[in-house]
Structures are given as C-alpha cells and as structure tokens.
C-alpha cells in the first residue's frame, strides 16, 4: 500500500498479544484489526459510529473502532470478539446468547458481544430488560427484533448459563 503520507510504526496489545505494524495515520482501528491483523470478526456496518457493529473494548471500555485511528491505539490494549472466548470454549456471554438463539445473520453479533462484554466488565450488575435495551441502544440489529438478545443478556447477567 503506497501513500504520500507518513507511515507510523505502532504496537497495540490485541487480545493479550503485542501486535506491531506500520500504518498510515488515517487508517482506522477497525481496518487495522481486520486487514493488518486478519481479525475480521470486528465488522463495519456504517463507518460513522451509528450501528455498533465495529465495537471493540479499548482499555476496558467499549468503543466504536471505526471512529478511532489505529495510531491512537499505539501502546493501548484492545480486546476483540476473537479474544473473548478461552481457546475454543465459549465465554459465558457467548454461551448465554447461543442458548437463547439471540442472533440470525451474525453481522451485528461481534459488536453486541463486545458491547455486552464491556458492560459486564464495568460491573453493570443485574439490569431490567428495559435497562438492557437502553444499554444496547448503540448496537443495531436488523434480523432479530432484539428480544432474544435481551433474553441472552438477562441470562448472562444472572449467571444462568449452561456452560
């Protein structure tokens, strides 16, 4: 990839591993993850921060990776959907979503998983169904009508997961 602009060397800790690359400043974190690191689980649904499909966890907080430059993640920690499960076994959040048949086409799914992961990581505790809907208002799903996603999150938050 050629560019007239200065390329920068960055090192980002992604899913626990230090990953180095040389990128253009304008390269988004989402594209860095997807194309430079082959972590294609993070999806692009809008590229203007409205749909949440690109959600990753940056330094413990759920953020839209399409609205962050890769260079801004230099020296920081990113968790993507590929980093949530433990070597083949599903994370309890993923298991709860699976058991509740929350998703259909799957394109929005990693974004939801990471938003929920971030939410749980911040200690959201038990939430009502309405509160769950509001917490997830930044993630758009076209297939599911959200109800079974809420079921899955409710199950995950109450620890009712058949892992």
């Amino acid at each position, binding site marked *: 990839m050629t560019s007239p602009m200065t390329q920068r060397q960055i090192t980002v800790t992604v899913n626990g591993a230090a990953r180095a690359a040389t990128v253009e*400043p304008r390269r988004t974190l989402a594209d860095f993850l997807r194309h430079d690191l082959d972590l294609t689980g993070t999806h692009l649904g809008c590229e*203007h*921060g409205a749909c949440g499909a690109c*959600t990753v966890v940056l330094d413990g907080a759920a953020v*839209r990776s399409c*609205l*962050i430059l890769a260079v*801004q993640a230099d020296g920081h920690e990113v968790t993507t959907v590929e980093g949530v499960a433990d070597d083949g076994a599903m994370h309890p959040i993923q298991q709860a979503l699976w058991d509740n048949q929350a998703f259909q086409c799957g394109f929005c799914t990693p974004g939801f998983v990471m938003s929920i992961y971030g939410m749980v990581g911040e200690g959201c505790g038990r939430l009502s169904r309405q509160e769950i809907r509001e917490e997830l*208002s*930044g993630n758009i799903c076209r297939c599911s009508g959200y109800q079974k996603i809420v079921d899955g999150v409710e199950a995950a938050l109450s620890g009712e997961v058949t892992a």
Partner: protein
Amino acid sequence: MKPAPFEYWAPTSLDEALKLLSGFDDPGDAKVLAGGQSLMALLNLRLAQPAYIVDLNGIAELSSISRDNGTLTIGAMTRQRIAERSADVAAACPLMVQALQQVGHPQIRNRGTVGGSLAHADPAAELPTLAVCLGADLVMRGPSGERTVNARDFFTGFLSTVLAEDEILTAVRIPAAGPGTGSAFEEVARRHGDFAMVGVAAHVQLNGDTIAAASIALSGVDGQPVHAADAGAALAGQTPSDDVFAAAGAAASAGLDPTSDLHASGAYRKHVAGVLVRRALKVATARAKENQ
C-alpha cells in the same frame, strides 16, 4: 468510506499542541482530534478533509475534574463517561449527569469528551445547551495566551464558535449548584440516544416559596443553543405554578423560528419547545424544593 489522507501529530503537552497549530501556514487546514465521535465520522464520510490532524488524546493535563469554591472545573479532554460517573459532578452539577445520560450511547460516551462536544457545537447536542443554561465559562488557550468566554457568547452559529483556528478549548467552569437549586434536562428525540429534535435545560433557584432566579436554554431550535433570557428573567419573583411554567414556555417559544428537516418541522420544534420548557421548569422546581 475511508478518510482522505492527512498528516498526524500526537503532542503530549498543551504547549506542544498550540505550537503545532500556530505553525501551520493555514491553521484552517488543521483540525484537533478529541474523542473523535463527531470528527471521525466526518473524516470517514470525507465531509471534512483537513490536511493536518493534531490529536489531543495524549495530553494528560487536559483531563481533570476538580471542584473548589463553588466552581466545578472539567478539563476539555475528560471523557463524557467519566464525568457522567463522577461524584464531584453529581454533587456540583447534577444537570450535567442528566444531560450526559441523553448523549448517544455508552460507547459514544466512553470515548467522547466534554470539551469536544462543546467545541463541535452541534445545536442539537446536550452539553452546549447545558453550558448556555448555566452560564458556564469556557476556557481556551492560543498563541496569545488564555482567555475565558461565557457560554452565552461562545456559540455563534451552526457548528461555529468563537474558538480561533489556532486555539484549543482547555476547560469548562460551571458554577456549582447550591442549596435551593434544582435543574432538569428534557428532550424529545426520534430514538433513544439520538440528537434532540428539541431539548431544554432549565435551572431554578428558589428563595423560600418563590423563584429567585431561573435560566432556560434550548437545543435543536436554531443554529446554536438558544438562551431564553427574557423568559428566564420573567420568572424571578414568581410563585411557581403550572400556569407560570406554561407562560414561560410560551414566552420561550414565541421568539423561535426553527427550520424544518427530515426529523421535525419548524412548527413542531416551536411548539414542543414550549412544552419542554414547561416540563423542565416543573421538574427543576420540584428538585429545588427538595434541595432547600
């Protein structure tokens, strides 16, 4: 949708950032990058194509929350989520907590900054309206030093402020809420977390059973937040009642001539402005009573 190319700097001090900005031949070719929740979308859509980006996220000194002597000071790069959860902010400016809960979604607030929202100056955004309501002071620094501009003079039009191209907003100073005061934020949006079609921030100071002072600001009804100064001033000395609130709503709404867009007509915004002023005053007054 990918950004056009730009050169990029990530200074670690405010001085360094300012030096960079004033060093460009045309500072209008540069944009500072704060939380990126507005600017990055514009870059991705190529609606903004600055030649230079100066990233402020590495400047630790711009992130802070402090309270002293009746003033709450929030550094411009403080994340909205941090402010939303801060005990100091909750105590000194409950209106900000309430406003922030309406801002977008948690993922936006995790990254978006208090100063970024103020400097971006979207007329439908919550923080600029809050700043106008409370008469906050905005602190900025440029090559000629630091200056303070009151929020009511800061916003000049659609996405426009008095910030010069070589200046950086560094902090916002808000008078801390005292006893007998209450505030409220009411807005109507198409969906949860959207920019408001119309929003109202109201602040009421009670003196016993009468209103000592009140302040009303509106979002979404003009190119910048509207300070309904006359409607607010007219409340001084009045005994709170629904009729009084309704009259304030009518007064605030009377001077408005909002434009129509896909989301709401001008007539809608004008009418609902009055409705929300009435509701916000009612809630703010009730809170002020509890706070006496």
